[in-house]
């Protein structure tokens, strides 16, 4: 009996005292939204206007049929391979560099020691260097990879080399941090035992920390490879070659069918990469490092013997990737590449600080924040709207068997079209949405907000639907039994229970969108990014470095917001 009652009162429940608390966060968000629209000069009426959506729809209609001519397919496949190669080279390079950096940044090895109670002797003369590496990586990470790509393109020119270097730099910082965290989260007890028998730091690492973290390292590296494929495609928007470059080119030439072909290639590439990395993960899991029948030899020998095929294939892919990723002897040894970069870096080191420009930067930063707020709010609304038909009520399934055949087809059609819409919204990256929205509503923060809203709607809608489906369903059964419709069940039984989780997703997504909003402008979505792009084109590097500093402030600020403690503050 007890478990069939809805455990958590709905947010709108009229329990004493609870009602004010429950309204506090929505009220705060609504105020933020109002402020955002007011300061950014974004006309929200446009969002609801018929023309906007008609223009978007018109654009989508003109994508069809996709361009499958042989000559263009060749171009598309070459671009796909280039994107893939960029990701392969960047991930390989960054994991190789990140490993020593991660070791250096590990607090357990150099700064805090393995155990809070083993006093003394834990501090090493390397501690300051370790601290520096850790925080240096933090600074590098606070600059989005697209901005890195923009800088490298400006520094060494258009083409895949800039993209590969940009990805390598930002993923090195990312992986270095991840590796350091993995090292620091291993079981301390075996490490204490090794220290007690007289092992050095190097030995503790090789025999205690590394064996424990190997599985996680592989898995995180594979995951970062998947992410880097996504990033590599997008980097092309600022001229770093590959799929993104082709997409923006076709957009500019109004060759919309080509855009669709390229996006199909992108989705296919993501699908294949996902498939392969899932296969690799399964393979590594099935083959634990040692088993009773394996042969003699050290750890390294065993690895080579067991995974030689994967090793060989990887090496071949790596070699084949070098040239399309723009890493050739010529590109690296060109004397002026390094000189260009040095001169470029020197220009970046003198930021523009005139009062009028700083005021402008503050305005743009506020605009960026409001883009993220409006985008998240739009996305949450869209996601909620789409998640309702995309939710399958497990409890309702056996009831639906009794229904007529045509009713069932109808409800299945609604379900699947909602799911497909969500997947489509999610699969297309924010930046591609910006390109699309720019065509529909013109350059500016409004395009950025809608684009962010559409992508966020896809992401949140899927999460919402999953959350709704995963919340306890006994209550639904009870309500169906008393004659409620499925929609009523969602509102009265599932939503109240799923609400806290959904709210958390929205807040998390807002944090990610704040980062995204800083780069939407690079393709015309307003905010700091747009100014950044313009000033790079004008080679006004003083302004560029001030703008980058503003981006870093926003990103670090959003990091701060997403700290667990800060989230608790927002939620209560």
């Amino acid at each position, binding site marked *: 009996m007890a478990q069939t009652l809805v455990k958590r009162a709905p947010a709108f429940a009229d329990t004493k005292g609870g009602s004010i608390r429950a309204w506090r966060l929505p009220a705060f968000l609504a105020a933020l939204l109002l402020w955002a629209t007011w300061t950014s000069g974004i006309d929200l009426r446009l969002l609801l206007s018929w023309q906007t959506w008609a223009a978007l729809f018109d654009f989508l209609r003109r994508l069809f049929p996709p361009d499958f001519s042989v000559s263009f397919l060749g171009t598309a496949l070459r671009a796909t391979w280039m994107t893939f190669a960029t990701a392969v080279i960047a991930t390989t390079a960054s994991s190789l560099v990140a490993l020593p950096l991660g070791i250096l940044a590990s607090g357990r090895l150099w700064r805090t020691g393995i155990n809070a109670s083993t006093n003394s002797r834990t501090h090493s003369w390397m501690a300051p260097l370790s601290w520096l590496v850790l925080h240096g990586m933090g600074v590098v990470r606070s600059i989005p990879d697209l901005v890195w790509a923009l800088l490298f393109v400006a520094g060494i020119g258009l083409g895949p080399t800039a993209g590969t270097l940009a990805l390598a730099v930002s993923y090195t910082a990312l992986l270095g941090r991840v590796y350091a965290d993995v090292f620091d989260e291993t079981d301390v007890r075996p490490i204490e*035992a090794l220290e007690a028998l007289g092992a050095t730091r190097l030995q503790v690492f090789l025999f205690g920390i590394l064996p424990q973290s*190997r599985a996680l390292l592989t898995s995180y590296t594979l995951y970062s490879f998947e992410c880097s494929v996504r990033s590599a495609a997008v980097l092309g928007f600022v001229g770093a070659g590959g799929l993104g470059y082709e997409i923006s080119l076709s957009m500019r030439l109004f060759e919309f069918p080509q855009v669709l072909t390229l996006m199909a290639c992108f989705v296919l590439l993501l699908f294949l990469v996902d498939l392969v990395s899932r296969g690799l993960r399964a393979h590594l899991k099935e083959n634990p490092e040692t088993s009773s029948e394996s042969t003699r030899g*050290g750890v390294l020998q065993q690895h080579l013997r067991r995974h030689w095929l994967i090793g060989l294939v990887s090496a071949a892919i790596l070699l084949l990737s070098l040239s399309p990723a723009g890493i050739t002897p010529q590109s690296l040894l060109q004397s002026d590449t390094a000189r260009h970069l040095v001169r470029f870096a020197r220009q970046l080191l003198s930021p523009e600080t005139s009062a009028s420009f700083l005021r402008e930067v503050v305005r743009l930063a506020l605009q960026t924040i409001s883009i993220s707020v409006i985008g998240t709010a739009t996305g949450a609304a869209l996601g909620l709207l789409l998640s309702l038909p995309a939710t399958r009520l497990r409890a309702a399934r056996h009831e639906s068997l009794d229904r007529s055949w045509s009713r069932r087809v109808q409800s299945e059609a609604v379900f699947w079209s909602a799911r497909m819409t969500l997947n489509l919204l999610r699969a297309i990256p924010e930046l591609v949405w910006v390109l699309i929205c720019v065509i529909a509503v013109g350059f500016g923060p409004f395009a950025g907000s809608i684009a962010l809203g559409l992508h966020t709607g896809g992401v949140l809608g899927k999460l919402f639907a999953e959350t709704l489906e995963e919340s306890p369903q006994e209550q639904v059964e009870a309500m169906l039994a008393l004659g409620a419709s499925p929609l009523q069940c969602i509102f009265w039984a599932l939503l109240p229970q799923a609400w806290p989780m959904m709210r958390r997703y929205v807040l998390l997504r807002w944090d990610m969108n704040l980062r995204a909003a800083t780069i939407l402008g690079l393709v015309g979505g307003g905010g700091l990014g747009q100014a950044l792009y313009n000033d790079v084109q004008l080679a006004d590097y003083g302004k560029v470095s001030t703008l980058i500093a503003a981006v870093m402030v926003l990103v670090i600020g959003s990091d701060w917001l997403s700290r667990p403690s800060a989230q608790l503050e927002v939620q209560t």
Partner: protein
Amino acid sequence: MIYSLNKVGKEFGEGRHRSVAVRDVTLHVSPGEQITLVGPSGSGKTTLFRLMNGSLLPSSGKLLYCQTDLAAMSHRQLRESRRRIGSIYQQHYLVAGMSVLANTLSGALGRWGMVSTLRNLASPSAVEMERAERCLEAVGLADKRRFRCEQLSGGQQQRLAIARTLMQEPEVILADEPVASLDPVLSNEILELLVRLAEETKVTLLTSLHQVDLALRHSKRIVGLRCGEIAFDAPTRDLDQRSLTQLYRSARERDAATGRLSQESGGASHGADSGQKGACIR
């Protein structure tokens, strides 16, 4: 003397959270001795062992290992000393994800320099391999050497821990409640194994135990600890079941009288990790 402890004390935390884990312990251990420490949970056995193997430094008093003060050593000297002290823990402190053989080999880390570490990681030298296999044979795990250590049962893992310590070729073995997580039959087996190996290799053996009967059966000298202090230190033949059980009961009664019955020392225990679980607050 292998160990001379002179009024050794160890306290954790500061101010209100201060707690004393070990106080004024004076203990002398000569080479080849087999000593068992008994005492209720929180009486300071683990802390004492961690002081003796150099994981912790004493807050007061002097702890000499082979006539030298562990606290006054340089990093290099300390490492050399720790190489000669073998530690076996209650939970086995093995490295998950490595094979039984590799875990055994890691006992030799203290002897290897940087070059041989790297070489042995890639492909262990024949000498070390042979030594490791002898150690595994001694504990009866020779057929399990290719297994991952987490595939072993609890008793096998403790044997593996012993094999790693043998590989270390220590002068003294500190076994901290080595059978706490094992059943009575296995406990007996493991202790017999430890005692036999210690006698064969002429190693000094210090074991801490909860089980009074096992302590009486497997040791020649018993040291009783209560609230961080030595309650008695006598040859086994002078002691009987009753006097040992008394140690547990009197500790409990005294705690109850002051309202601290087997009380974990609260907030302080977080900062100082497991080194002082249930230490008596003064």
